[in-house]
């Protein structure tokens, strides 16, 4: 591939996947650290571009996630702060009074969800992140984790049931 074409291909790879990689890292660290490591993941992709064997069925994304996971682990081993509960996301603006009620309900639901997520195992959290939040197929998740797709589906089903039960318990106890 010509250098100029490689550059355009790589910009496309970045624009297609940067948000997913950022979110994956953001679940584990503060926003600034997640931004920096996102850039490092793509730098590594550029440096390794001729050595990585990419499965055409799933593309680069599984490789990017694996690199991001390794970098996050290294980051925490070297003393980086781990963040498990993200901030409550903003709501849409419209009717102000209704917004306040909606925002309050949404905030409580968000806290319950994040609290439940933080009590799941890292593997279960990752499965929910990939399959539910990012809407990846079980084949893609299997390529990231090294499990087979059937195992991904069964473990994901159990993780979703756990999450549902924990959120319900948190809301009942609030």
């Amino acid at each position, binding site marked *: 591939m*010509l*250098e*100029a*074409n*490689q*550059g*355009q*291909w*790589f*910009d*496309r790879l*970045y*624009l297609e996947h*940067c*948000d997913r990689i*950022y*979110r994956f890292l*953001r679940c584990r660290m503060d926003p600034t650290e997640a*931004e*920096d490591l*996102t*850039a*490092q993941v*793509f*730098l590594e992709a*550029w*440096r390794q571009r001729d050595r990585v064997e990419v499965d055409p069925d799933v593309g680069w994304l599984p490789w990017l996630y694996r690199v991001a996971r390794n970098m996050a682990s290294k980051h925490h081993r070297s003393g980086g702060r781990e963040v498990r509960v*993200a901030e409550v*996301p903003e709501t849409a603006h419209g009717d102000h009074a209704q917004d306040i009620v909606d925002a309050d309900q*949404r905030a409580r*639901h*968000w806290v*319950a*969800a994040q609290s*439940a997520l933080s009590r799941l195992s890292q593997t279960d959290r990752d499965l*929910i992140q990939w*399959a*539910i*939040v*990012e*809407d990846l*197929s*079980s084949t893609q998740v299997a390529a990231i984790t090294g499990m087979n797709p059937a195992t991904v*589906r069964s473990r*994901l*089903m159990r993780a*979703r049931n756990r*999450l*549902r039960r924990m*959120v319900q318990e948190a809301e009942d106890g609030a």
Partner: protein
Amino acid sequence: MEPEMDSLDPTEQLLRSSRETLSPRARREHLLLLARARAEEMNPAADGADAGIRQRRRKYVVGGAAAVAALLLGGGVAAAWVQSLKPTAPAMVYCFAVATQTSGEDPGLFQPVALLADENGTMMTPEHACANYWRAGLLSQEPPYVRADPDGGAVEGRRSVPPLVSCVLPEGNVGVFPNIRCIDVGLPDVAK
């Protein structure tokens, strides 16, 4: 998607609908960093990409302050200083599709491009590098402005290239704009 994913419960819907995205500023910094890494392969003397991550915030503060000072000073001496500056990262450029006051804040309006050497080892000029993108139809003055094409720009035919000018952006990088003079957007020319 998998059949079992078709129905999400309210918690899952909330998690999916609350997805964060990278800020435009972070995207812009990353694209700069990655373009610089590409340029570094061609020209090892360029700034290291890893160092770029560590130093980027300090550079922006220093570069931004210098640009603001330049714009505020006015008068003959300041004008002479503003008219031409040496960019800090000559191995890459931003090719802008349009020139507006806010174009530098919107990553959809520019394409970072590494300056590559030709077969004789001569580095291309910023205008030449961006002209290639205009010619291939990857930049246009109408939406979507910037097309990232993995195949290197499979646009039918060759497109015309508007008059291009190189200016020094507040961060010290080179921006190449169509149809303006640098002074029109309050930026210094690149010193030849």
